[in-house]
């Protein structure tokens, strides 16, 4: 486990190093004059500045880029968190159901019909449904869920939940697609293991075998796909923030690109890549820990 952990930590460190270099390459895009050497100098200067935790200044707001991001990041993380919860609530049962038997597995490709609509179409569909069918307009988003919860004001909590519901459903739908895929992949791999037949021949029931041996393997498979799920959630967050006017970090990324504010763009990229890489690391470690626990048990 220690060796595995060190190897994964090394991979994470290398990935983060690459993300820092990518952020420096982007952040230096607007700073160089003519020529490759000037650009290389700007990239090097950026890397040195990153080492001092100086992420540059926003060309639009003239604030430190980190301050701009720090103001917006909590909203994005909140949306990601709610989206992840929705993704698990929808994706896990769907994934397990579609892997449950041969007949249901055969119906899995039909799910592609639902999944074929891009995230922005799902967002617009939800917007239409909420306004025209449910006659329910989302409330404006002005406080965080944690802050509302800590204040103990239940009206504020309900207001936050109303404002986050539609964007979270949009993000969650994209995450659910990834989770059900990861679960189906894990089940199809685990279901072909020869030990299942052996244990059945020894007299264990299918339920016993699946709940004791197959289920942890499937959960470990889901953990291993954490990076993939995080990436799809982040992508969907960018679209949901745009569609629902949510002022988060992904919205900041899009606006900064439109206005060529490369310091902010580089920093947002670094944070997003870091989130995906960390999710990959946590997922790999959790999967390994689960496997070790099973082995020891």
């Amino acid at each position: 486990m220690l060796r595995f952990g060190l190897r994964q930590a090394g991979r994470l460190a290398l990935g983060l190093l690459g993300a820092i270099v990518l952020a420096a390459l982007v952040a230096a895009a607007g700073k160089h004059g003519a020529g490759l050497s000037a650009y290389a100098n700007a990239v090097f200067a950026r890397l040195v500045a990153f080492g001092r935790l100086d992420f540059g200044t926003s060309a639009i707001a003239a604030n430190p880029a980190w301050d701009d991001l720090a103001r917006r990041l909590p909203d994005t993380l909140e949306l990601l968190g709610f989206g992840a919860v929705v993704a698990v609530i929808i994706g896990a049962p769907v994934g397990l159901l579609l892997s449950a038997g041969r007949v249901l597995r055969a119906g899995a490709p039909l799910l592609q019909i639902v999944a074929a609509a891009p995230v922005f179409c799902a967002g617009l569909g939800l917007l239409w449904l909420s306004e025209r069918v449910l006659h329910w307009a989302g409330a404006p988003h002005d406080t965080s869920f944690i802050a509302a919860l800590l204040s103990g004001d239940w009206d504020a909590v309900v207001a936050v939940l109303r404002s986050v519901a539609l964007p979270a459903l949009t993000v969650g739908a994209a995450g659910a697609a990834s989770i059900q895929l990861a679960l189906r992949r894990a089940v199809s791999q685990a279901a072909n293991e020869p030990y299942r037949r052996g244990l059945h021949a020894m007299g264990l029931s299918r339920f016993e075998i699946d709940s004791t041996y197959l289920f942890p393997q499937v959960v470990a498979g889901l953990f291993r796909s954490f990076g993939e799920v995080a990436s799809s959630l982040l992508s969907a967050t960018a679209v949901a923030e745009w569609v629902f006017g949510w002022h988060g970090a992904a919205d900041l990324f899009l606006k900064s690109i439109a206005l060529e504010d490369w310091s902010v763009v580089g920093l947002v990229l670094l944070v997003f890549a870091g989130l995906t890489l960390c999710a990959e690391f946590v997922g790999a470690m959790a999967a390994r820990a689960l496997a070790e626990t099973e082995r020891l048990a």
Partner: protein
Amino acid sequence: MSAIGDIATPPAAPSLRTIIRGAGFIGLGAIGVLVGLADVLARAPANAENVGAPLLAPTALFPFGTDILGRDMASETLHALAVTVTAAGFGALVTVLIGGLLGFLAARLPLALGLFARWIAGVLAAVPALLLAILLIGLTDRSFAPLAAGVAAAPLAFVRAFDRARELGTSRHADFARATGISRNALLRRDLAYEFRDTFLVNATRALAAVAIILSTVSFLGFGATPPHRDLGLMIGAARDTFFDHWWTATFPTIALASLILCARLAAGLEEGERP
């Protein structure tokens, strides 16, 4: 029944996966025909305004209705589908070449160089492809959107091809070939030929679906296609203010886009739980 009939194995029934793939290819073929004949089938040229009254609901004369500028939605959807398919097709080719081919070749480079290339692709793959595409467009120009979408989808294809090629490189047939004196280049050519024969269509259709999603989303967000070359994403984005009261302005482009993505994904015939 003859003896030969007794021992001859009956022809295997096509599996569900084969049928689904076939349906996907038929769908893609139909879309290809529609796109090829777009200028003939469409009643109005692209972006022709005031063909009918603004925001007419679907009727026999205008089966998809009209938009806010009085453009025939059926013609516009057809033209936009042609733009989307052409751009996504080009992007998919870029993904297959940069991702699939270079990934396969990089795995056979000297170890350090190959791992360096894999590391770069891994870092780029950690950035969501949509954001990477928008970044590339921001750094270049909107006219490069198809190329940017193709390049953005490539890191994942690169990583997949690299890992597969490494697996093949350490397989038993590779060990046997090396032991019998077959050169590295000959082995690479052989693996490449078999790999492309077996996976080209799967990879290309998979890339087509991915690039179509990226391109349409990029256009929806305002970073992709620009009028008069409107694609489906831009059409849906332009209908954002009108679709609440006039559902047809967004519905038909959405159906066209979803059909393209669905057919491409079905044609890829993904394995159980495989990432599209």
